[in-house]
């Protein structure tokens, strides 16, 4: 092609990931113990997989309605009602999506006009900012610090709100820190959202991996439901990342808007995944409890071990990540990760991947079996001794 600027400006303007080379290095190396994986180490529980196989055998290979199988929406309604007392109408207020990733993109595109601002608390999952930018919006990053447990405060949020602010993207328990908000903290945040009339997009994909506390769904707060797009999915809870299945619940008007985009861009989520998800909601509870227990133990082990090694960290309240500081070792987080990988073959992710201000931190995922975690701790210790 002769044409210059083949790639849209919006896309070429997206900042490239600063740690792509590091990722490539990890993928090239053999025998690495990876603490850098953002998905469960369990395979999908057998009863769910078996349902997927059964669907294929029976010839369920078609589209479903745009919104997703009615049965699945009905089960989700029941689940959310039991779990959080939230009542969403399966006809108008629930949309089945291809992972939470799609749901997030739809939510952002459904609400944003060019130039409007979305507040994105940091450190955060890597896609939030780019998704807002691609939708023509402006992500306004709000850094949280170790001092506040990597959580933003209501005051901080209030100071960031302007006339241009349209909404906020929340994620708790958080990737990369494992931090989660208490009901009280959420109520304070909700008061600010009400005051500035913000749309709240809340990504609660790790809600079922909450340790030592009851998870509070944002729309369950007083007067929050009508302004909230609640996002969740099956990937983390049921170890179903590859099935690509998520969902969004919210006020009819917003779900209708999201469905409009979804029907033209995605049409529907895969039917086998949807049917498998029905099985997950019906019979998956026991497997979820078992996996959660295992993550919980690993969290305690990693928290204790890292602190013993002098990598100070905040105890994660959920998910399967821990975000220790490596400041005192005098290396940048990328150098730290690079050297640990080359010298001891342990992979983790430099904190800068999750926000510019997180130089000096690394993300460790404990979605890896206990034997490997134990070995990883031994290797990290050996590495720290050489510094």
């Amino acid at each position, binding site marked *: 092609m002769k044409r210059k600027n083949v790639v849209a400006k919006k896309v070429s303007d997206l900042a490239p990931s600063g740690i792509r080379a590091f990722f490539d290095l990890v993928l090239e190396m053999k025998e690495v113990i990876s603490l850098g994986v953002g998905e469960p180490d369990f395979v999908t529980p057998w009863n769910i997989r078996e349902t997927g196989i059964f669907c294929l055998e029976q010839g369920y290979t078609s589209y479903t309605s745009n919104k997703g199988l009615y049965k699945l929406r009905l089960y989700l309604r029941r689940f959310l009602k039991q779990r959080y007392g939230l009542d969403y109408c399966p006809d108008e207020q629930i949309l089945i999506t291809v992972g939470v990733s799609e749901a997030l993109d739809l939510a952002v595109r459904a609400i944003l006009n060019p130039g409007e601002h979305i507040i994105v608390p940091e450190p955060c999952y890597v896609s939030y900012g780019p998704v807002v930018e691609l939708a023509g919006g402006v992500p306004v990053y709000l850094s949280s610090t170790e001092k506040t447990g990597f959580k933003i405060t209501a005051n901080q949020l209030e100071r960031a709100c302007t006339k241009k602010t349209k909404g906020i993207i929340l994620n708790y328990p958080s990737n990369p820190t494992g931090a989660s908000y208490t009901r009280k903290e959420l109520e304070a945040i909700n008061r600010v959202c009400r005051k500035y009339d913000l749309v709240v997009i809340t990504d609660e994909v790790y809600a079922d991996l909450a340790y030592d506390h009851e998870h509070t769904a944002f729309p369950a707060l007083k007067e929050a439901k009508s302004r909230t797009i609640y996002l969740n999915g099956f990937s983390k809870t049921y170890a179903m990342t590859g099935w690509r299945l998520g969902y969004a619940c919210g006020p009819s008007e917003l779900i209708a808007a999201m469905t409009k985009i979804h029907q033209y861009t995605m049409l529907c989520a895969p039917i086998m995944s949807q049917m498998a998800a029905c099985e997950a909601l019906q019979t998956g509870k026991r497997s979820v409890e078992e996996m959660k227990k295992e993550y919980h133990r690993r969290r*305690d082990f990693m928290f204790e071990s890292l602190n013993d090694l002098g990598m100070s960290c905040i105890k994660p309240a959920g998910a399967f990540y821990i975000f220790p500081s490596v400041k005192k070792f005098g290396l940048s987080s990328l150098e730290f990760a690079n050297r640990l990988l080359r010298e001891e073959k342990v992979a983790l992710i430099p904190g800068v991947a999750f926000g510019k201000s997180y130089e000096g931190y690394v993300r460790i995922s404990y979605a890896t079996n206990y034997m490997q975690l134990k070995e990883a701790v031994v290797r990290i210790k050996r590495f720290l001794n050489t510094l």
Partner: protein
Amino acid sequence: MDEILEILEKDARVSAEEIAKFTKIDTKTVKRKIKKYEKDGVIVGYKTVLNKELVREQHQEVRALIEVTVMPQKNLGFDHIAERIYQFPEVSSCSLVSGTYDLLLVVEGKDMHTISNFIAEKLSPMENVKGTVTHFLLKKYKEDGVILRHREDNKRIAISY
């Protein structure tokens, strides 16, 4: 069930120090509790689960499930006859079950001949044994919750957000 037991049931090699980390109980208490479980017979032993198919040459071993119908004894029920049966070293496990027979045994021997000898000479002639049905095990797929097939490597990509 006590969490200490849950952890050990899954992996007997986890040390008291590690259990302490998992459970937030201090190491000393964990050690004391384990000692007590051992003394009380709650923890009966520690062993390794082997896939014997893979170590066949050295340990050619045959296993059979034997359904045994017995005559319960006055005042003693099944316990006495069960005891007489489970004392044999050939019997690796013995349970009283509901249904069409009474005791279910797992019997191990170095070949089929040994097992049939055991049945013919020891088990069947016993006074209260009314009958036996023997099933030789051909292949074992899962034992005590552990799938014996050799696990494939993890299929996840090594690093992701």
